[in-house]
């Protein structure tokens, strides 16, 4: 019996990289130069960040050292992470943040998809706000202008995402409506919000909204800013969903009609699920956008992670070591953003059509 010829073993990624990196003289030269530069950068970063770095909380030691001053981060970590939340009560934002992250993590698991996951996140949000605000069960009340840091960034981002999804679906459907007044109203809202920078919407919430509401309503600045983030996010997300809705062929709705589904049933069972699958990649980048946009509340004097960082650096003793503090904060944003990217990829694969 003739020996069977097996296909050649595909080269491992290491072999492929090596081959591609040294494909020709020119490529090899580029590779060597880039590797050399990279080595210098890594070496310098290692010297600065590890070898010469100091970790004691003493600005005098830092001034004499040429390396990083991680003591500056250690000294300021509470302000950067929790803002001005009263000392001794720090466990409340930390616990609330833990609850929120746990509920978001659970809701992200396929077995909790749907209403159950949504309710978990909503309940966690309510508990989080209750923990921050206090005033019940022996917790001292804490004014919302003292809330801050990473918990506030997460609270505002998750709130804006959760509340803007239903609003965005309604706006997207309204913009595609056959009724002209509904269509004009939705289009006008979406284009107005998308036409101005977020900071304008936040200024509107901070300075104009109090003028437009009855004098007896004293809406808390935190609530106003959170609602502005929702309003802003919804306009952009509506365009994402409109793109998804437009990609669903007309035949789908007609087939649903032929099967005697009502319009509402067709929308809920046929159109929206398909549109949702198509909008996973743009929705993912929108949600990262919301997380990043939350930082702008720092401009209207709300001390989220970015605002707290700015506040910590007003201290002249530690201000020279701003790079260390910025590195830590950037790393936090990066980890949060990249986890959203990773989760989006997981969803995309799970709901890919050609999966058999």
């Amino acid at each position, binding site marked *: 019996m003739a020996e069977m010829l097996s296909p050649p073993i595909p080269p491992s990624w290491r072999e492929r990289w090596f081959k591609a990196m040294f494909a020709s003289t020119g490529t090899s030269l580029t590779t060597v130069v880039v590797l050399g530069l990279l080595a210098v950068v890594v070496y310098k970063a290692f010297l600065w960040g590890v070898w010469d770095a100091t970790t004691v909380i003493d600005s005098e030691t830092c001034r004499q050292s040429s390396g990083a001053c991680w003591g500056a981060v250690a000294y300021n970590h509470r302000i950067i992470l929790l803002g001005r939340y009263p000392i001794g009560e720090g466990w409340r934002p930390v616990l609330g943040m833990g609850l929120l992250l746990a509920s978001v993590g659970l809701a992200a698991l396929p077995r909790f998809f749907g209403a159950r996951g949504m309710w978990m996140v909503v309940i966690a949000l309510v508990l989080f706000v209750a923990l921050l605000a206090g005033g019940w069960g022996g917790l001292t009340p804490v004014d919302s202008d003292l809330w801050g840091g990473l918990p506030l960034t997460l609270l505002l981002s998750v709130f804006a995402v959760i509340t803007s999804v239903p609003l965005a679906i309604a706006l997207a459907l309204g913009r595609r409506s056959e009724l002209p007044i*509904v269509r004009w109203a939705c289009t006008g809202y979406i284009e107005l919000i998308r036409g*101005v*920078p977020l900071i304008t919407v936040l*200024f*509107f919430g901070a300075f104009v909204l109090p003028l437009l509401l009855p*004098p007896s309503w004293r809406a808390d600045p935190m609530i106003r800013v959170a609602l502005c983030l929702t309003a802003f996010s919804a306009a952009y997300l509506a365009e994402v969903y409109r793109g998804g809705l437009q990609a669903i062929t007309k035949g789908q709705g007609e087939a649903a009609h032929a099967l005697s589904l009502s319009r509402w049933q067709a929308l809920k069972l046929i159109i929206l699920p398909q549109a949702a699958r198509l909008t996973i990649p743009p929705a993912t980048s929108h949600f990262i956008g919301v997380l990043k946009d939350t930082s702008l509340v720092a401009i209207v004097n709300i001390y989220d992670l970015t605002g707290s960082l*700015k506040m910590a650096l007003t201290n002249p003793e530690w201000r020279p070591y701003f790079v260390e503090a*910025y590195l830590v*904060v950037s790393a936090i944003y*990066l980890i949060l953003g990249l986890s959203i990217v990773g989760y989006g990829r997981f969803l995309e694969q799970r709901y890919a059509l050609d999966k058999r």
Partner: protein
Amino acid sequence: MKEQHEAMDKPPRKPVPVTALLLQAALLIALVGLLGWLAHNAQLNLRERNMAAGFDFLFHDSAGFAIGEGWVPFGEDDTYFQAMLAGAANTLRVALPALLFATMLGLTLGVASLAQNPLIRTLARGLVDLVRNIPLLVQVLLIYIMMTEWLPDAENALRFGGSYLSNGGLILPWGEVEETPFGVTGTHVLSTEWMALVTALTLYAGAFCSEIVRAGIQSVPRGQGEASHALSLTRWQALRLVLIPQGLRVAIPPYTSLMLSTIKNSSLGVAIGYPEIVSVANTSMNQTGRAIECIIVIASVYLIINLLTAFIMAQVNRRVAIKER
């Protein structure tokens, strides 16, 4: 004859259901009612705080603050209208150079992220992911604080040729440049705020632009690259002559929205004190208390800029789009 033909082609008009009419009437009444209620509240609030309303302050009151830089000369005695004008010009003064540099950076990074050398590809994509996932405000603040903390004072300004760089800004060699004991002064100065904002916007928009360039080049059918290889074009020639020209055509619509978002992102100048339109309107708002009017001014300025950009880019798109026959 022709008219008759057209009339026959039209499908019969669908009767409008009564529920649809009622629904729209209800929405219209609700919207008008909401606007009326807001206006009524605004009146009550303004009366209670003894504040005036209207746009007259734009033309009659002098702003009383100075704008240190820009294309539109502006002094303390000029009106708020002129201040807003100078602010709008400053928005473009920061957004246009940033867009120019970002496009160059985006082209470089976009091509690099498709390089055949995996080292360069990985580095380029890593850099893009890094910049895209950190909030622009954090980057603006970091670059600004770097410039103010690390650059020398005006007395010890760095000198290159005829220009001077210090934490007060960059003094350009043309115009009058004068060395005084307290530092250097000149007619053409790029402020630290301007430089920080342009640098941050360039990096941020450049990272997004590289994704647009990459997607554009990847949208060109594979056969085009293979055909250029068969015609013995080098990889670089294939990119320059075949892939990039076809890919950029597809990239015009997303590039237009990148332009619009970069112009809007220049509003972060308010965080570091660069006097662009949002910053100027914010100062005017604090001085006059006319918050509603100032927000309307900002929205109108952006509306005009957006419409102009969209119009220009539509012309560009029409010229470069493939003519379907």
